């Protein structure tokens, strides 16, 4: 495998061998099926998330990429019912599969959308933890980090004594590369990176099975960003949690996620293993997005990004929402909304008419998939040739 995300990072517990179908056959921990989310009601409603299916495998890192307003955060927040007014879930189910109990008894699956407040409270944080972009807003400004850990552990682990709670908090901070003396600090006394680390430590406090990372490093500098992400991925290997990693920065996901799902205008448009998505995008939008990041090496040449701008969710174009910006759009794209469906002979899914029926996809969207028994060198040279154009 050419990318570390796909090989070195796969935790031992995961059943998925690189190249295997990433969700079918993988032990799922969180399954989102047909999720629909609206902002507002009735005729005025904006369909922020439309009919999304997404499966997070146990111990996997699933990247969710998309531009602002594409619905990526809405999808995640709605899945755990933390979306704020005027967001309303209008359909679908979100299944959480707890890890099997130690005595082999299969644990019961819970539909988060049907769950009551009590059930949700029991699951949130202890099973599904969230790290948001702004740790400053998530942390309580008037109490120390230590006090916040203490409260968290006292609520969820009532059996723990005061001293052991403090020890556990110290251990957690060390886990994310901080010193335990930071427990005495207030959030405003720490840098942005430190605060985000503290947030991650708190998210890990109850040993969750799922971490939802919503733009966790967007507000940070590149160096800190890489440090924190590397630590997170290291922790994932050790602790075996699954992560839903939401970001607008596709290039970051290529490096850090196992699988990537791309969202556009409220719909999932492509889903594939990270390396496949990067080396051989099948969706014109993904292709365009990958060409929005100027390369760090080689000749400089003009790149054009994607023409136009993302659509208004309340005034979506008919058919495929991307067709006005798509250079390869065919008549059918203007009429019918494409569904996310598996590509024949491969383990990936794409919602694009260019890959359906008799349509012929342009060569740019037909590059050999590195995960499908292609020698890596071929894929690389192909890409660099393309880039030099």
């Amino acid at each position, binding site marked *: 495998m050419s990318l570390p995300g796909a090989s070195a990072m796969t935790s031992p517990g995961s059943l998925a061998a690189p190249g295997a179908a990433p969700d079918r056959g993988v032990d799922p921990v969180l399954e989102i099926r047909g999720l*629909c989310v*609206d*902002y*507002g*009601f*009735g*005729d*005025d*409603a*904006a369909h*922020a998330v439309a009919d999304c299916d997404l499966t997070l495998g146990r111990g996997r890192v699933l990247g969710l990429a998309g531009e*602002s*307003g594409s619905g990526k955060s809405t999808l995640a*927040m*709605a899945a755990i*019912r*933390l*979306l*704020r*007014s*005027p*967001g*309303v*879930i*209008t*359909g679908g189910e979100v299944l959480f599969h707890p890890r099997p109990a130690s005595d082999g008894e299969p644990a019961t699956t819970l539909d988060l*959308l*049907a769950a009551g*407040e009590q059930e*949700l409270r029991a699951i949130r944080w202890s099973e599904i933890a969230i790290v948001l972009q702004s740790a400053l807003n998530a942390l309580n400004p008037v109490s120390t980090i230590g006090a916040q850990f203490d409260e968290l552990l006292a609520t969820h682990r009532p059996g723990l004594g005061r001293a052991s709670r403090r020890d556990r908090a110290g251990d957690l901070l060390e886990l994310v590369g901080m010193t335990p003396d930071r427990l005495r600090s207030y959030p405003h006394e720490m840098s942005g990176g430190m605060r985000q680390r503290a947030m991650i430590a708190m998210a890990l406090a109850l040993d969750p099975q799922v971490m939802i990372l919503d733009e966790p490093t967007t507000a940070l500098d590149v160096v800190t960003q890489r440090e924190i992400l590397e630590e997170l991925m290291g922790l994932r290997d050790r602790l075996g949690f699954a992560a839903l990693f939401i970001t607008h920065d596709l290039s970051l996901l290529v490096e850090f996620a196992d699988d990537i799902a791309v969202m556009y205008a409220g719909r999932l448009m492509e889903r594939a293993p990270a390396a496949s998505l990067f080396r051989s995008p099948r969706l014109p939008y993904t292709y365009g997005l990958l060409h929005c990041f100027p390369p760090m090496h080689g000749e400089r040449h003009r790149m054009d990004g994607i023409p136009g*701008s993302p*659509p*208004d*969710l*309340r*005034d979506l174009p008919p058919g495929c929402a991307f067709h006005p910006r798509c250079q390869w759009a065919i008549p059918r794209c203007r009429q019918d909304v494409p569904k996310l469906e598996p590509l024949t002979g491969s383990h990936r899914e794409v919602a694009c008419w260019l890959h359906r029926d008799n349509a012929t996809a342009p060569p740019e969207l037909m590059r050999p998939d590195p995960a499908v028994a292609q020698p890596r060198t071929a894929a690389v040279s192909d890409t660099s040739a393309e880039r030099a154009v």
Partner: protein
Amino acid sequence: MALNTTILSEPNPPAGAAAGTPRALRLPRSPKVIAGLVILVVFAVVAVIGAWIAPYSPNLTNESWVQHVLVAGTGPGTHIKADYYPLPLPPSGAHWLGTTVFAQDVWSQLLVSTQATVAVGLLAAAISTALSIIVGVTAGYLGGGADEGLSLVGNVFLAIPGLPLLIVLADYVPAAGTSIFLVSLIIAITAWAYSSRVLRAQTLSLRNRDFVEAARVSGEGRVRIIIVEILPNLIPIVAASFLFTTLYAIGAYVAISFLGLAGSPTSSPPGLWNWGYMLRETFANDAVRGGWWWWWAPPGLCIALLGTGLALLNFGIDEFVNPRLRVAGLSRKAARRLGISRRPKLGLTPVVRRNVINVTSAESRTP
């Protein structure tokens, strides 16, 4: 559905959401706002035409408009000359709101009084708002020494209790009661400091916004930046503080009139008829104990009603400034039917299956 004009409060509203009008000029059309507007319009109309449509002069007395009751122990059968005391007449076709003990028409008094009361409220609010804009926005924009000086003045006025100062001022200017402008000015002096502080704080935050900086970079002058770039952004706050000050000014005018500090219409120079003075007369003549509700209740109700109208409109502005106070595009009734609380609980996104929604929106579309 009357409520569908409300804007979504999505964090990043998609471009082109509502075309045409600038954000600052759109007011949510909720029942509250409509009710408030109706009340205000009615009072405004009465204020303008009240003096014309009043059947009588408020000062006119007519012996026949009271019932003369013989004082016990006087008149025939006693050696004391007959003495009568007046009893006001209850509402009738001739006197819609009855009469006072002074044999005057209450309906006419109420109509005429509306003018001065509403006028003082609006004028005082206008003067006070102008003062608070001049002081608050200037202080906020200039910063430094100018800010400290102006803020100090504002804080002094904020610290002095308003009503006592008002009483002292009104007492000091005996002619105050004769002129709408003088009364308004006195009330405005005690009212501007609070809004000025709010406006200063808001200006401070606007001052560092990039568009102000950009105007400065393009060589725009100071006064123009304040008037053209900053002030329009303060409109919601100015409007809210204007309404609030109107409410306060009406209350203050009623209070000083009630205390007799704004002159009497019958003295010289004559004061102005207003609801506060009407209340003063009812109080002085034991109207409540006498059971003459048609005399004391109308001015009291008018004050309450006008206050409610202003407050309702203020709520509307509040909702507009803070869109989280409403569930977008959903009436209270529809929300209850869907089982959603109007103030949604944090951390529990409602699940409403689409088929339910369709039914409701179809229902609400039918007239």
